[in-house]
């Protein structure tokens, strides 16, 4: 087919719904063989971007090439070479697990004899080989998601699109999905995924863009983004007054604010960067233990202090002033 090394190319890609700008003139490239992520909170424009790449939603403005083709002119041809795992499962509830793969494969015009063999392989791959004859509904959320991934692979796609692949799954189910996606990555399957979980982005993505309000805020590998924007470590300080029982909170809220301010001042006096997140102060430093020692020496008596490595969550907070998962 002569597919170029750049599987997706977007320039000033824009999606508007009436007056609402869902995706605001973003640029990005996805290279063959990499796992590329869109990290951002709900409403950042990730799903709209995915739907445009998936050729099920026309772009409003800009340029988009997928697999070297134009989605407007070649939508069906492009879709024939994509695998799509949508945010909400849309497995066929009227079909068995096995038929979900075969019939879906028929939508792509693949011969039934080929599909039957492939369906067995794929069900084994997602550890559902023993559920082939089952209906879809009794499957757990994690099983359904794995079945959706198997279904997306039935046409041996050049590019796999995963929209929030583990949202709503319990931790064990998430790890099973991650492990399968990791295997696919090692097999060289190019993946584009959206997520609002920084651990998912850190674990899976070679490269990612951080999205907020329809725009791309920054781009790079997880490690590069952390190195660029935040210090090595973070000290999380929780003021003492919040550690008390809830009764004190009513009349004590001003006191909490005052205490947060006091902690902020203290951290900043020590020459470090600090942010407030609801009930905590995050202090960015290259040596967490040293900062904690200094704060203690200055008379800080918080309810809890936690020193940890910086993550993409911190990058997002610093770039946007908000957290990825809003209360």
């Amino acid at each position, binding site marked *: 087919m002569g597919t170029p090394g750049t599987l997706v190319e977007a320039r000033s890609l824009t999606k508007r719904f009436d007056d609402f700008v869902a995706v605001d003139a973003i640029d990005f490239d996805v290279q063959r063989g990499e796992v590329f992520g869109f990290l951002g909170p709900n409403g950042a424009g990730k799903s709209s971007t995915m739907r445009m790449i998936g050729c*099920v939603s026309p772009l409003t403005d800009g340029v988009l090439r997928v697999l070297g083709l134009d989605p407007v002119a070649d939508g069906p041809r492009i879709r*024939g070479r994509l695998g799509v795992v949508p945010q909400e499962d849309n497995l066929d509830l*009227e079909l068995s697990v096995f038929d979900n793969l075969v019939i879906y494969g028929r*939508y*792509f015009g693949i011969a039934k004899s080929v599909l039957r063999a492939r369906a067995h392989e794929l069900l084994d791959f997602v550890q559902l080989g023993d559920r082939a004859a089952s209906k879809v509904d009794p499957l757990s959320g994690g099983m359904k998601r794995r079945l959706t991934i198997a279904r997306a692979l039935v046409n041996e796609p050049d590019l796999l699109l995963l929209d929030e692949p583990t949202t709503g799954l319990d931790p064990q189910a998430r790890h099973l999905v991650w492990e399968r996606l990791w295997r696919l990555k090692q097999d060289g399957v190019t993946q584009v995924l959206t997520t609002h979980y920084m651990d998912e982005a850190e674990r899976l993505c070679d490269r990612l863009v951080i999205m907020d309000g329809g725009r791309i805020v920054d781009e790079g590998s997880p490690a590069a983004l952390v190195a660029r924007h935040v210090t090595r470590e973070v000290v999380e300080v929780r003021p003492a007054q919040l550690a008390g029982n809830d009764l004190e909170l009513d009349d004590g809220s001003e006191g909490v604010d005052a205490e947060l301010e006091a902690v902020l001042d203290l951290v900043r006096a020590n020459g470090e960067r600090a942010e407030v997140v609801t009930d905590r102060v995050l202090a960015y430093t290259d040596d967490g233990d040293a900062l904690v020692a200094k704060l203690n020496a200055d008379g800080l008596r918080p309810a809890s202090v936690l020193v940890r490595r910086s993550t993409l969550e911190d990058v997002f907070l610093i770039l946007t002033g908000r957290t990825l998962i809003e209360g």
Partner: protein
Amino acid sequence: MSRVSLDAPEVRFVEREATIQRRLWRGNAFSQIVAPVLYLLAMGVGLGGMISSAGHKVDGLSYLEFVAPGLMAATVLQNATGESMWPVLAGFKWMRFYEGMSASPMTPADVYRGNLLWIAIRFTVASTTFLVVATLFGAILSPWGVLAVPAAVLGALALAAPLTAYVATQDDDHKFPLIMRFLTLPMFLFSATFFPLSQLPAWLQPVAWALPLYHSVSLCRDATTGTLAPGGWFAVVGHIAILAVYITVGYRIGRRTFTRRLAA
């Protein structure tokens, strides 16, 4: 791509439905036989027997012979109404299998056409069943009766093409019972199904004439009696033309509403 015609995207839609039907066909076949038996017993034998014993004929036919083609076209159209609403909204919303199709090379227009093709196949089977049952009742006078099958299917499509187009614009099924009650049921009763159109008040006749069922009933009746109604071939062409208008207009709108719904 040598097998384009048999491997068209619309056929893939039908394959999905056929796979589901493989599990359900016994129950469906049973109800497809029972319904015409009950209708023909009640209207043809029961009511018809009373009319005949009073020495009456309708347009020169026994009541059974008159009502059988009417019932055939009317039950097909009535069932096509249901098939065009709830399963279609399920595809869009409740079960979202149209979404899966849209992620494949199939286009929204393929989905729309595939659904119509499935409805055509389904009601070919249903109307053939009806025709066989009616033949056993002695209600079919002519071998031309086989043409009642395409006539009834044409009626089903004349309803399904615009109705599925409309359902693509709906977010819930609140209006569906109203359509059944205020469109399908009156059409079922007053489209020359049970009595000639001339029995209707003059002002109502154009209303019945403007709806699809009257035309598929007329075509079915011409076929099963082997006799052309007044108007002859000219009327036959007219019936087909009006059903074709319904299908064509519905098709043009349906391609657009399906695309708007599935690719926004």
